[in-house]
């Protein structure tokens, strides 16, 4: 039998065999193997505004970034801290109203309103959510689902902040490019910041809170305080999304508390792959453009992505990103024996 001159060898064999999990990079090939997905992601996203055919699709990219912020904040809270918050709209609403008020009444420029309303919005959201932090599972989900609706009704009933008409004439971004690159830049910044955070000691404590909060309490740490930190980070991202949405559309009103801001990010996270942080981003980059393409079909669009969501949840596929990661580590190449 002719001796086999070639055999298949796993690409990451060299890397994985040396240590369990701690990568020791020995050659350019291994370095490129590890960094390629990240590089593709960064340059792919950065190149998007140039690739988009018409100005309309560039606006869709900003909307995708907004939903991605919300998806990452949902993923951080749900997968890493165990707090499932269905209240993405609450963060967006608070962020957008703050940015609108800062811009119209105080006349602050866009460059100032967004950072201020992000931090201020995050403090307000955390303060308002503080009493429900001890709740768990279904209860926390239902409360956070109710917060945006309640706030919208209160604004409508008291006729404050412009009542149902909302606040108009908010300044927009200086130019389209600034708007897009600010959004994409902030998105990538937050994405890699959160991925770093999750492996820091603070990130470990947050994951421990999800794993077993009684044990964390037994080691002398106030669980609610750490949950509040997690909610602060997540709501900061939500408020940033809300603030930039206001400056894109030069308008803020109670419909910023709409349910779409809560449901679509969750769908994106489930499809993209919960727990990988880039998964939800990928989910948004798939879901939002498709829902734009389907816009001509009217409400069928919502039927479409709610059925996708059900399909992914029920068949419990782990999401595209997790699948891609698993497959990426199984690439083989022919090697001389």
């Amino acid at each position, binding site marked *: 039998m002719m001796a086999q001159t070639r055999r298949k060898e796993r690409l990451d064999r060299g890397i994985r065999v040396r240590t369990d999990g701690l990568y020791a990079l020995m050659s350019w090939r291994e370095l490129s193997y590890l960094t390629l997905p990240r590089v593709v992601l960064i340059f792919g996203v950065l190149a998007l505004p140039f690739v988009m055919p018409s100005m309309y699709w560039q606006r869709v990219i900003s909307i995708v970034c907004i939903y991605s912020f919300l998806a990452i904040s949902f993923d951080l809270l749900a997968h890493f801290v165990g707090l499932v918050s269905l209240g993405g709209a609450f963060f967006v609403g608070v962020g957008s109203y703050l940015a609108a008020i800062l811009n119209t009444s105080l006349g602050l420029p866009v460059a100032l309103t967004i950072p201020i309303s992000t931090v201020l919005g995050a403090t307000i959201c955390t303060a308002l959510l503080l009493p*429900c932090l001890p*709740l*768990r599972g279904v*209860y926390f989900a239902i409360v956070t689902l*109710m917060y945006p609706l309640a706030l919208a*009704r209160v604004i409508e*009933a008291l006729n404050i902040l412009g009542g149902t008409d909302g606040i108009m004439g908010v300044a927009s971004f200086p130019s389209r490019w600034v708007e897009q690159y600010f959004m994409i830049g902030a998105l990538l910044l937050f994405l890699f910041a959160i991925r770093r955070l999750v492996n820091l000691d603070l990130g470990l404590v947050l994951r421990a809170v999800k794993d077993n909060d009684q044990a964390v309490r037994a080691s002398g740490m106030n669980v609610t305080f750490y949950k509040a930190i997690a909610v602060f980070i997540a709501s900061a991202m939500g408020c940033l999304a809300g603030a930039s949405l206001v400056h894109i559309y030069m308008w803020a009103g109670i419909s910023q508390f709409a349910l779409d801001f809560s449901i679509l990010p969750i769908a994106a996270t489930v499809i993209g792959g919960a727990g990988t942080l880039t998964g939800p981003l990928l989910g948004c980059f798939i879901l939002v453009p498709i829902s734009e393409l389907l816009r001509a079909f009217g409400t069928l669009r919502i039927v479409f992505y*709610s059925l996708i969501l*059900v399909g992914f949840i029920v068949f419990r596929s782990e999401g595209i990103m997790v699948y891609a990661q698993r497959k990426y580590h199984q690439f083989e190449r022919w090697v001389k024996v």
Partner: protein
Amino acid sequence: MEIFIYGFINSISLALIALGFALVYGISRIPNFAHGALYVVCGFITWSFVRSLELNYPLSIILAMISTGIIGGLIYLFILIRVRGMAISEIIASYAIGLAILEGLRWRGFKGMTYTLPTFKEGSLMLAGTPVDYHRLIVVGVGVCIVAFLWIFTHHTKVGLGLRAMAQDERAALMLGIDSDRMAVVAMGFGSMLAGLAAVLLLPLGNIVVEAGYNVLLLAIAVCIVGGLGSWVGAVMAAFLIGFAQILTVVYIGPHFQMVVALLAIILTLILRPSGLFGRQKELEERV
């Protein structure tokens, strides 16, 4: 006097809306966020039976409720059964199904304001100085019978006791030979029929609109949480609490706070006493 009568009517209609949700959660621990969609679907099915197929009214009501029950059972069988136990996936899956049904109805053409159901009986009578129309009295009558029927059903019939056993502790019930999935299908079907019944009773007062689905879900959740998730007795009590609270706010504070009452009720209950009036949520009380 008026406050008492219309407060009572409002409470009974809230109880009818919430019973289906409370029953499903009580028995199979599934928060059925498609409750509002089932309510609206039953309304439109009844409408199509009555208006396009010209069946007589009581027959079409029964047929509509049965078909809604079947839809509820199918939702459980094909979708929720796979996500049993994972609380959050249940919420998202059932809400997505509800959304799909509602938007599907709207896309199918059930839009606009001309879809209505005839009332059971025309005219009204004076009750201690306040005019009350017959239909609302029928609603109250049926509501009270349903509550009584549920009491008898869960306390004195085999299936009812089986359902209650499963509500207390699913694994223990499993051990005693109660097939929890079959019970859950029964519970889901029964809960959807209750949602259908509420639809058939309350929709003739106005018109059938897809938006009602979202409001009904909101009210059902508010009542069930204040009453304690899982105990339908609590749900009935909470329905009266919120029903009268709404009427009182309309009269004394102003009608535009009406919707805020239900939402604030949820948030306050969950913060102060998560297990609600009658609930005894194991995972919330002390357990170390």
